[in-house]
Structures are given as structure tokens and as C-alpha cells.
């Protein structure tokens, strides 16, 4: 534990990367997941099939392989993140970070899509029928009536998905992002005798993040629950 306390800066910076990965991929995954669910329940058969195939494939692929895809496969088809070169304070967001964000959001959005689809199914039938009866087209039915309710119904599973995302950011360590798990391994390598303390210190960091999100989700759910 002392090793971590003596170098609290490194610890906090590592969790800064974890947090940045989580926030950016979390937002992106919500947006992409919403698009996917609109495709999946929409009237265009080709899009429906494409979205279903994508979701089924990616959901069943281990995240490590999705990361490997962006590390080794994507460069071959000219998808690179070399354009990403942002430096804020002591944080450097470069190629590896971009690839990590892309992997995490493209992986997580499939779970967001499934959560939302369950949410759409939870909206009472009459809502969509009434919306159609007043003449709304598919886009109107979705954006004005169904999705707002679906989001509320889907809040608990969406929260689980986002909590899983916090923990999934750790996989970025395997692909060279200096986030918490990578930092923990560095600490453990240099201070092998303090292994347990270091482990607990980093576990606590994750637990704090998870509990904050879970608390916020519980509050939001209570507040926005459909009566």
C-alpha cells in the first residue's frame, strides 16, 4: 500500500485514463447503441439484418479479440488512429487511446442495443398504436413516444452495461494504454512484497467508480421511473 501512497500521482493519473476511457466510450456506446436499436426495430429489412448480424457477432466475441482487431486488422484496411494527438495537462491521448475507445464503444454498443431493445419491448403496445393513430411516421413514433419510455425502462440494464464497461476498460492495459491495471502491474513489478496492498488500492479505485455509477443510476431510475 505504501508504494501506492508514495506515488499517488501515478495512481491518480492511471485512474484518470480509466475514467477518460469510460466516459468517452460510454457516451459513444450509448449513441451507437441507439442507432443500432433503431435499425433493428425499423422497417428496412436490410438494415435490420445488418444490425442483427453485427450485434450477434460482436456480443459473442471476447473483448480482447475486438481490441486485437483494432490493433492489427484495422490498420490493414486503412483505419488508423494516428490522427489522434491530443495532450491535456499530463494526459496524452494518442493512437493507442483512440483504438481503445473505438474497441470499447463498438463492443459495448451491442449490449446497449440489446438493453434498449428490451426497453422498447417493455413499452406498452397502446403507446405506439396511439402515436401511429395521430399520424406520426416511424421516426416520430420512435423519437417522440417509444424511445423516451424505452430509455427509462432500460435504465437498470443500461447501468449494468456501463458498469461492465468500467471494468472492461482494464483490457486496454493489454494493448498498451497506461490505465489502472497497467499501472498496477508496474507497481507490482517494482514492489513485489507489497502485492496485496497494491491490489487492494487499485481494487478500491474500481469499486469507487462502480459505486458512483451505480448510485447515480439508482437515483436516476427513481427520478425518471414511469409511474
Amino acid at each position, binding site marked *: 500500500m505504501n508504494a501506492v501512497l508514495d506515488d499517488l500521482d501515478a495512481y491518480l493519473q492511471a485512474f484518470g485514463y480509466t475514467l477518460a476511457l469510460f466516459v468517452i466510450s460510454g457516451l459513444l456506446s450509448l449513441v451507437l447503441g441507439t442507432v443500432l436499436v433503431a435499425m433493428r426495430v425499423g422497417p428496412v429489412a436490410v438494415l435490420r439484418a445488418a444490425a442483427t448480424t453485427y450485434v450477434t457477432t460482436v456480443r459473442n466475441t*471476447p473483448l*480482447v479479440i475486438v481490441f486485437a482487431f483494432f490493433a492489427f486488422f484495422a490498420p490493414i484496411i486503412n483505419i488508423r488512429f494516428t490522427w489522434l494527438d491530443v495532450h491535456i495537462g499530463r494526459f496524452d491521448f494518442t493512437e493507442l487511446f483512440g483504438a481503445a475507445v473505438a474497441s470499447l464503444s463498438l463492443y459495448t454498443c451491442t449490449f446497449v442495443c440489446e438493453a434498449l431493445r428490451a426497453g422498447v419491448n417493455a413499452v406498452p403496445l397502446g403507446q405506439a398504436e396511439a402515436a401511429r393513430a395521430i399520424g406520426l411516421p416511424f421516426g416520430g413514433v420512435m423519437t417522440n413516444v417509444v424511445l423516451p419510455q424505452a430509455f427509462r425502462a432500460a435504465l437498470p440494464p443500461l447501468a449494468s452495461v456501463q458498469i461492465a464497461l468500467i471494468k472492461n476498460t*482494464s483490457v486496454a492495459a*493489454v494493448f498498451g494504454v497506461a490505465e489502472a491495471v497497467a499501472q*498496477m*502491474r508496474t507497481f507490482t513489478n517494482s514492489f513485489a512484497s507489497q502485492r496485496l496492498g497494491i491490489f487492494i488500492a487499485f*481494487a478500491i479505485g*474500481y*469499486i469507487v467508480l462502480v459505486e458512483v455509477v451505480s448510485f447515480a443510476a*439508482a437515483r436516476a431510475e427513481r427520478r425518471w421511473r414511469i409511474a
Partner: protein
Amino acid sequence: MSGSNVLFDAPGPRTVARHRAYSLVALVVVVAVLAWVVYKLHQAGQFEGDKWEVFVTPRYLEVIVVDGLLQTLKMAGLAVLGAVVLGFVLGIGKLSDHRLLRWPLWLVVEFFRAVPVLLLMIFAWYTLGISEPGTSFWAVVIALTLYNGAVLAEVLRAGVLAVPKGQAEAAYALGLRKTQVMNIVLMPQAVKIMLPAIISQCIVALKDTALGQYVLAPGLTRIYRQIYLQFDNRVPTMIVIAGIYIVVNLALSWLATWLQKRLVGEKNPLDLTRVGNQQGGENTGGAA
């Protein structure tokens, strides 16, 4: 809301024409993207026979199946077995009437559910000794057991609580004791409700075995490394390994759905999303 057809009217002639146009555009875009990917891969020489030959060579196929798939399944299987045992112990403990037992177990379950599996894996690996042979295998098994066990504890609790209250009341009225009520009445029904969630958890465990890469564990990810280092065919190997994972996982999800229909019926899947701090046994994206 069941079936997507309630979301839009039966299309009239103009809408049908418009949907056809959308379909056509969507089809063109999808095909164009796929064609571009295939073209780029072809250009990079990824479709050359010698990059794929290894996957039709019986000797290497045997290596992939025996040293890769079987090792991975062994890790996942052991972890799930351990997780079921641990889940039962923790889950029943959490349902105990005694606070002194309930609270520490609550802490244990929350801890292992909130900590990334990768973190557990690394810690287990260093603790077992990184230089000794075989420790990475057990590090993966231990990490997955602890995480999935904690999740299954919550699943079990939710399963027992999902059994209608009258069942326990009736059992007590017959004069059964606490243990008997749990063993004879509640548990058999709870297990039936839980079974699909347990299978979903198998998928999570199987996917997470791939994290073993970081602790140099055996299994598909090690075979992946060995093959591409020898044949310089990283992309084809990646596609094959991902394919193996996907096929096994799809088989498992199919099994889970079948069990769900067979044992629970489609109406009342166990609502695990409201369990504890809102992580259930659902496949929410693994939990690296």
C-alpha cells in the same frame, strides 16, 4: 410490445417504394463496405493460400482443438464449476437470518463483482508465482471463479426470492424446519428459474478466458500467438479464433434460450437487472 410491426403502419404504395429505395441504398452501402474490406485484405495479401493453409492442415487443426479450444473450455468449465459452488455458498449465506454471517458475505460479493477480472487474474498470477509453470492456468480459473461466483451468488438470491412466498409459508405450516424449507421447497424451484442465467454466465466466463492472454495462460489465445508467429498470418488466425469463440457462445446462448422456454416459460424471465447494485447474471458485456 411484441414484434416490430406495431411501430409502423402497414406501408402504402408510396412508402413501399420508399422502403425499397432505402433497402437498396442500405444494401449498396453494406456491400460496398464489405467489398472494400475484402479488397483491402486482398491487396495486403491476406487471402493468399499459405496464410490459410495451416487451418486445413490436420496436424495444426488438432493443435487448435486440443491445445486451444479444449484448454480454454477446461479453464471456463473449471471456473464455472467453482463459481456454482461458491455462488451457492455465498448466496445461501447472504440469505441467512444472522447478520454476522450476512454482512461479511455481502462485502465479499460486492468486492468481487466490482473488481475487474483482469485485476484479479494478475493478482492471482503474481501470488501463485509468475515464473512457475502452470500458474497462469490456475490464475485464470481462480479469477473467473471468484468473479462469476459473486455474480451467481446474487443470481441465486434473486432466484430464491423469486419463488412465490406462499411456497415457503406452506412449507413452514407443514412443520418443516428452515434447512428443510430451503433444501426441499425453495432451492429446487429456484434452480429451475436460475438455470438460464447460469448458462449466460458460462458465456461470460468463456469470453473472459481470452483475458488470460495478459497472464500468458494456455488456450485459444496462446495458440493464436503461436500460429501467427510461425506463419505470419495474424489476421486469418484472428478471424478463425474469433469464429471458434462465436460458434461456442452461440451454441451456449441457444441452450440458454431453450432452457428458458422449457423450464420458465417466456413470460417470466428472472429480472436480474434490479439485483443489488444493478448487475445481474445477464450477459452485460463480460466483466473484464
